[in-house]
């Protein structure tokens, strides 16, 4: 079903989302991918603060292409989430409410999603031009030297995503594929 979600949000809003829901997100989200996660992880290990408070926030696994003049951002689709699996559980334990990416997650991430009543969304991979149209504003807030991998604060309006893993642990990648499987692919 179609839903509208304003972010940041608490666990009550997240618990209403179900695997398979088509969700339009409006509000503020943060980008971080491989290199930014590694730095945040190292910062935490040294007892330092993160560049933004993850509590009740969403991280979008994305590194955009450069913006043309007068535009907030370039192409801006999701990258493969599993490369962030090593880092995601500690962020979820700190109150991160959602992740937007594409592709499978590890068992440890799935458990952390359920334990912390969070959600994992997929944005459509390879639709970076379309998705950029829902991003109104983009600002680098940390790790600027990482270029495309810097942490950005994004203002989004009706940013389209699909709930893959919900707070109850339902996983669309498993259920939907089973529904349409016609043969034994070995």
């Amino acid at each position, binding site marked *: 079903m179609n839903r509208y979600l304003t972010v940041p949000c608490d666990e009550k809003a997240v618990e209403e989302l179900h695997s*398979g829901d*088509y969700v339009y997100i409006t509000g503020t989200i943060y980008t971080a991918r491989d*290199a930014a996660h590694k730095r945040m992880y190292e910062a935490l290990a040294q007892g330092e603060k993160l560049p933004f408070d993850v509590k009740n926030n969403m991280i979008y696994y*994305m*590194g*955009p*292409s*450069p*913006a*043309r003049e007068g535009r907030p951002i*370039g*192409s*801006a*689709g999701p*990258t*493969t989430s*599993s490369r962030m699996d090593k880092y995601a559980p500690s962020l979820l334990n700190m109150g991160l409410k959602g992740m937007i990416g*594409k*592709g*499978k997650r590890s068992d440890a991430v799935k458990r952390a999603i359920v334990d912390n009543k969070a959600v994992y969304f*997929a944005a*459509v*991979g*390879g*639709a*970076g*031009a*379309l998705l*950029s*149209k829902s991003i109104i504003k983009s600002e680098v807030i940390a790790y600027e030297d990482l*270029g*495309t991998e810097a942490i950005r604060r994004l203002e989004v309006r009706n940013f*389209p995503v*699909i709930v*893959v893993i919900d707070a109850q642990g339902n996983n*669309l*990648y498993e*259920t*939907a*594929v*089973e*529904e*349409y*499987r*016609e*043969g034994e*692919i*070995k």
Partner: protein
Amino acid sequence: MDGKMKVIHTEEIIKNIKEMCIEANHYLTDDMVSALNKATDTEKSPLGKQILCQLQDNLRIASEDMIPICQDTGMAVVFLEIGQDVHIEGGLLTEAVNEGVRQGYQEGYLRKSVVKDPIFRENTKDNTPAVIHYDIVEGDKIKLIVAPKGFGSENMSRVFMLKPADGIEGVKNAVLTAVRDAGPNACPPMVVGVGVGGTFEKCAILAKKALTRPIGEGAQIPYVREMEEELLRKINQSGIGPGGLGGSTTALAVNINTYPTHIAGLPVAVNICCHVNRHCVRMLE
């Protein structure tokens, strides 16, 4: 010098590579566009259909507004088929290709995704170097193929060193295994490039080149073409679907290239590409 020698200047190579990097990242070839159209009509899952429609909107926005189709504008893979009667003037060919990539990624607002060292990972900031494959062929022309390759799908690609006794069933299983393991990570609907035969590195290059063959063209060798059709059917029965969110469109094509191999081996490479299967072809003459 023989009178048949054709001179091609590196400036021309730089200019063409630059334009091709930009073109490939904003426009798909007609065969890819019509394969996506067809898939949108036949997809059984409503969500899958919705995702395929989004991909079509995405292509329209990319070309109209000059926004790269995908933010991962790839590592530039370049195939050069150089006629042996061509003489290149103006500097080193490899440097010309890299200069074209440098200019294309800079001027085209394309993402710079290349790191200088695989361990220390400092960005080269101009997307060079390209990965370049040279072939010497007959004639006095140069065929350029620029195929920017995204790494969501590249990471799901595999090489299998099968035994001769594994035969054709072994090859099919290798392809299906790679596709199944790739699942949603490779941004389906995918194009599956397969190389069979040669050596360890040859089969991988065959697979990469197979991705640039137009969809629907089919292999020349009848049994290979049959295998392509059978594998495409089976992959689309896997249920993976658009975006990996279930459906009847998991791949748009399976392209297989073969090559003679050693009595002791059966190398198979499966190079998976997402639906943004970019390539641009030009002939310099």
